């Protein structure tokens, strides 16, 4: 990545124009031509720097549900439990973390009722208690990082 790539990433993480010629509008603000901007975005996507270029949706407004859940897994069972949890297609991601609650995963489903079912299934399969911590308030969601 060169300095122009960094300027593009920093500028467009915050938002992208919704207009008839959005690349042209964004390029103008960055002092680039539309062609240069599109070529660089293609390369950044191909290089894997950008996971994608588009919208993030609010699952709840679309009728779906998302929650964060945790397990306290005995060390010797960790791999086996991770396999059981990750086998559920509703698990969006799963991290091992440093705490007595050492496995943290996101469950995303098409309906709110389905969350409870996935949790019950995981508890039955693992004989462990799932700590369900759905958000109460969202104070900030940015996912923006200066590069």
């Amino acid at each position, binding site marked *: 990545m060169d300095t122009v790539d960094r300027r593009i*990433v920093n500028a467009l*993480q*915050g*938002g*992208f124009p*919704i207009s*008839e*010629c*959005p690349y042209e509008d964004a390029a103008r603000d960055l002092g680039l031509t*539309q062609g240069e901007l*599109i070529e660089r975005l*293609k390369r950044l*996507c191909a*290089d894997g*720097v*950008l*996971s994608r*270029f*588009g*919208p*993030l*949706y*609010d699952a709840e407004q*679309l*009728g779906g549900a*998302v*929650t964060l859940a945790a397990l*306290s897994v005995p060390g010797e069972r960790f791999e086996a439990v*991770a396999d059981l949890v*990750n086998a559920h297609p*509703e*698990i*969006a*991601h*799963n*991290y*091992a*973390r*440093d*705490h007595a*609650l050492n496995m943290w*995963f*996101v*469950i*995303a*489903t098409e309906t709110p009722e389905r969350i409870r079912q996935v949790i019950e299934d995981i508890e039955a399969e693992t004989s462990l208690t799932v*700590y369900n*911590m*759905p*958000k*109460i*308030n*969202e104070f*900030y*969601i*940015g*996912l923006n*990082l*200066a*590069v």
Partner: protein
Amino acid sequence: MWVSETDRELLAEIEGGLPLVRDPYAEIGRRIGLSEADVIDRLRALVDRGVIKRFGLVVRHRELGYLANAMVVWDVPDDLVQTIGQRAGTYPFVTLCYRRPRRLPRWPYNLFCMIHGRDRITVREQIARLNAETGLDDYDHAVLFSRRRFKQCGAQYGIRTAPEAA
């Protein structure tokens, strides 16, 4: 809030990413039988309503050199968590900030921040700054660095959301 079938079709069409062509909204419209103006109006309305939370680049943290991430949690009195959570969310290294329920006695924490940094030392410095400047120093907290990522991909349920943003 109700989202129409046409809007859902539009969201499904762009969820994989905006086409890298001169007139991407016209291109999307051609695929699903809408005019460019209709696509633009609908997308603007979906952003205004918050159905689309963010519209822009989504970066891969690790590929950009952000190798450490910590979930930092605090036990903040319920009557203060709103004010302090909003303040914490203004720091550039805080990428997500939520209030969640405590699960006593095992889990006493109700404020959750995700903090990304180039390495653990940087993340620890950022946490120290956050604690000192926001008054969070007064409350019990825990820092949960990630040791390993097992799975990261959008859950497959038709329309993708930010998986990090549960």
